[in-house]
């Protein structure tokens, strides 16, 4: 078979690219080695983790805040198998949805491992070893990423686990040691912390979610203290050992000391690495960089004309919505359109509770660049809506250009900030000033008023409700 476009990998990058190619009238095929479509995000990432985050948050509220709301419950219990089942249902519905989308957009789906034969030919090997070849004018590599590991941390996937196993545990750990307090560690640590586990975070950097604005990490850590959590920052893990029912983690701190922790599970969440195994990139001559990422130009084209790469397998944030934007970008580029992506305005989101979300420059970045800025903040404590729902942790911080008042960054931690960040993205895409948002009506009472107030604070220090 000959196609206009063949996409390898059906994660948010690949399947969105396929949909857009279909919309644009291209003869399109997608290859997925896994049994269901949707990639990391739908099967073992965004969606299942959010399902468990919601379930565990309900349990946490039932045990901690319902009484204050006037709801009394007795004999409350966690039914972890049911939580995992429900999560499985959510995943199934979502991945079935992708199947439907492929059909709707007339995209041919191949199940099997895709590998290059040459720059226009892909060999598909199914799980029984059957093979077939297809050819295409354009090929999009969207093979995503896999959990990273280092030699000192041998993953056994039983006690020393990655996020994938953490989404399918049979029991709530008593003591979960999380290596890496980034997004995935913070989210999955929260899940089991809320269900009653003691959670110890061992992190090489000096704070939680270290790539986000500094205030966010501090605030998140404060909020996480409500759970049974310990934090060991500036620690480098030197060994992790499975001793049967126990895992022992040893780490050096930056002052010459050594930390020894023992728990029943160790979640390794030190990041993810681009996944290109089995693709036979060399057959097509596609180059990778020193970190194993496929090298692309500003049109997301690799060094081989007609071969593109998107999502986690290339440079940039490993986020589903970033991969999606790139999927659309590539499809449109192939038909000769000139789309663009403003990478600065791809929001970062952490689905802990409170949620964390940020877009644009962090305060640290503005300082490093020497840009004169002003800050406005508004704490959820002062929000009527937050008080009503007892979600008063967190704050919204707006960074604006000192001279022009243009919004340069928005960072928020609090209830539903993952949804709220969209307003900041829209504003920044149109280069709004802080005062612009300060002059737009926000429904009362809502969490979004906090953004308006923070903008007023940034404009002229004239927040109204504090």
């Amino acid at each position: 078979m000959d196609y206009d476009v063949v996409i390898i990998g059906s994660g948010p990058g690949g399947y969105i690219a396929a949909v857009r190619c279909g919309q644009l009238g291209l003869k399109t095929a997608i290859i997925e080695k896994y049994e269901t479509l949707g990639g990391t995000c739908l099967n073992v990432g965004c969606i299942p983790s959010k399902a468990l985050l919601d379930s565990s948050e309900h349990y946490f509220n039932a045990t901690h805040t319902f009484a204050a709301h006037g709801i009394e419950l007795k004999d409350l219990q966690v039914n972890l198998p049911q939580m995992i089942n429900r999560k499985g249902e959510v995943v199934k519905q979502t991945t079935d949805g992708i199947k439907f989308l492929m059909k709707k957009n007339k995209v041919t789906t191949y199940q099997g491992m895709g590998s290059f034969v040459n720059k226009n030919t892909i060999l598909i090997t199914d799980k029984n070893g059957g093979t077939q070849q297809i050819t295409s004018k354009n090929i999009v590599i969207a093979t995503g990423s896999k959990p990273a590991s280092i030699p000192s941390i041998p993953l056994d996937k039983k006690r020393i686990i990655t996020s994938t196993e953490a989404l399918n545990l049979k029991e709530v750990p008593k003591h979960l040691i999380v290596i890496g307090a980034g997004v995935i560690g913070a989210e999955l640590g929260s899940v089991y912390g809320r269900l009653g586990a003691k959670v110890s975070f061992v992190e090489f950097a000096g704070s939680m979610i270290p790539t986000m604005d500094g205030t966010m990490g501090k605030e998140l850590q404060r909020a996480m203290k409500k759970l049974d959590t310990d934090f060991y920052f500036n620690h480098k893990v030197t060994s992790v050992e499975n001793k049967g029912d126990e895992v022992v983690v040893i780490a050096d701190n930056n002052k010459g000391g050594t930390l020894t922790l023992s728990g029943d599970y160790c979640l390794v969440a030190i990041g993810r690495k681009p996944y290109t195994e089995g693709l036979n990139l060399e057959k097509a001559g596609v180059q990778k960089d020193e970190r194993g990422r496929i090298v692309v130009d500003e049109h997301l084209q690799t060094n081989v004309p007609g071969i593109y790469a998107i999502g986690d397998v290339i440079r940039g944030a490993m986020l589903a919505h970033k991969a999606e934007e790139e999927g659309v970008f590539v499809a449109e580029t192939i038909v000769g359109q000139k789309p663009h992506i403003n990478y600065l305005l791809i929001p970062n989101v952490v689905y802990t509770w409170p949620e964390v979300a940020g877009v644009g420059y962090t305060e640290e970045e503005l300082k490093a660049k020497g840009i004169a800025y002003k800050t406005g903040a508004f704490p959820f404590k002062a929000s009527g809506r937050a008080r009503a729902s007892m979600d008063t942790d967190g704050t919204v911080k707006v960074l604006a250009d000192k001279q022009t008042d243009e919004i340069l960054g928005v960072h928020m931690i609090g209830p539903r900030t993952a949804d709220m960040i969209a307003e900041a993205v829209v504003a920044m895409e149109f280069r709004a000033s802080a005062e612009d948002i300060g002059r737009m009506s926000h429904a009362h009472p809502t969490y979004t008023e906090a953004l308006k107030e923070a903008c007023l604070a940034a404009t002229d220090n004239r927040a109204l409700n504090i």
Partner: protein
Amino acid sequence: MSLEVKVPSVGESITEVTIASWHKRDGDSVNADDVLCELESDKATFELNAESAGILRILVQEGETVPIGTLICRIEEKNGVQPAAKPVEKAAPKVEPTTPNTNRTPAITENKTQSMQETPQTTEVVEMKVPAVGESISEVTIANWTKKDGDQVQLDDVLCEIESDKATFELTAEASGTLRIVAQAGTTLAIGDLICKIEKGAAAGNGTQGGGVTPSKEMYSAPKEVLKEENKKSEEPGTQPAQTTPVADNQKTSSTSYATGHASPAAAKILAEKGIYNKEIKGTGIDGRITKADAVQAEKTQPKAPAGPQETAKPAVNQATASVPGSREQRRQKMTQLRKTVSRRLVAVKNETAMLTTFNEVDMKPIMEMRAKYKDKFKEKYNVGLGFMSFFTKAVCVALQEWPAVNAMIDGDEIVYNDFVDISIAVSAPKGLVVPVVRNAEQLSFAQIEAEIIRLAGRARDNKMTIEEMTGGTFTITNGGVFGSMMSTPIINAPQSAILGMHNIIERPVAINGQVEIRPMMYVALSYDHRIIDGRESVSFLVRVKQLLEDPARLLLGI
């Protein structure tokens, strides 16, 4: 009261739609939610429903392609039907003098009534509508605006250029005052549709921003050069977006801001695809931001750079001819209305006639000798050169009168024979091919024919051709030879039935009285509609033309 129905925005990246079919007819009475028409984009087909009940007034016909936002029909409320006349928005708004109330809190902006935004003093508004530009022309496209919305214009100033499928003409101001553009460049309008309004003597305010008391920020401000423009390169993944450099504030005037000239995401994509830099266009959004509509329009006004004083000519942007050596970029350009019509017509002719072509060759030696001999005298006497066209025209006239079917046309079930000969001459003009008509060519002298052709060609080059000058030919001559064509099969210029193709003159060996001689030869082709012209007629016609050209004395003697 009438409700305006515009093409809704139907999805990202869709900038125009084609009216696939009207489900209701003009003048039909429609109910709310009735399906009015089917719209087609390059991605999907969808239906447009009536938002209210009333009488449908269709403004854009089936098959037309129009940009998002174009007014395509009106629904007039049934009681008080005003058939043709559209409600005249007589200004003198019913505003109790809303002298800006300085006590009002600055934050409150009332824009419930349009009129609140008008300057309180009474303004007389002149509505300018698409004039009737010639029979058979039912619609026109606004090619580009030479004045901007909000500009002060004087009586007779050229406001915009209007294109029909036959000609381009200029619209001049019918009054002095402030221009309010209603139909944007690129919009296709029916005769009688509103193009713009001129507010007589109105103060040049910005009519679009509400609340007189907001700090004065002019909406339409020129992009500032100081601003670092977002250019494609700097948006390279991983790097910061180009814009955030704080710009010297002291240079700021009330009419511009750091965001002046910033394109919205959709606008940026459209501009990139057109190869237009943000700097080259003026944003109409808040503080001069470039909106999607600005970008959609940008292409159309592009080729003619607005003659602003500070506009130091920007070379080669978006010019179809510009080609960078080594580049493999592709550029896309919208078809002009003229081009679209031409293409539609040509295909229609191929599909709807039984067209075929017969060939012959002409020994040009006699004409060339005659020309060489008399051309100076001719020029001296008539002040025009003696070209080949007059010979061909005269020969064709004689032959057409002998073979009237070739000079006839089909009209429904009837054949219309023409007892006169109006020759259409294909001339290439800057915007494409035009075909002016030499009337009653059978009665004209050689000199008159030459003079008329020169006059018409000059007007075509200057885009001055009127519709009348291009309608009504009975037969067409086209000369591909001027570009070097040796042989071609021209397409009939409907509703005519035949066209003669001239070609280049090449010296070829030919047999003359058993001897091989080198002669200047031209192939001639006659494409004709076999439905009304039989082979005998067409071939005989062409042989006759050949005879007359090879022995021009026959023209004189009529034999």
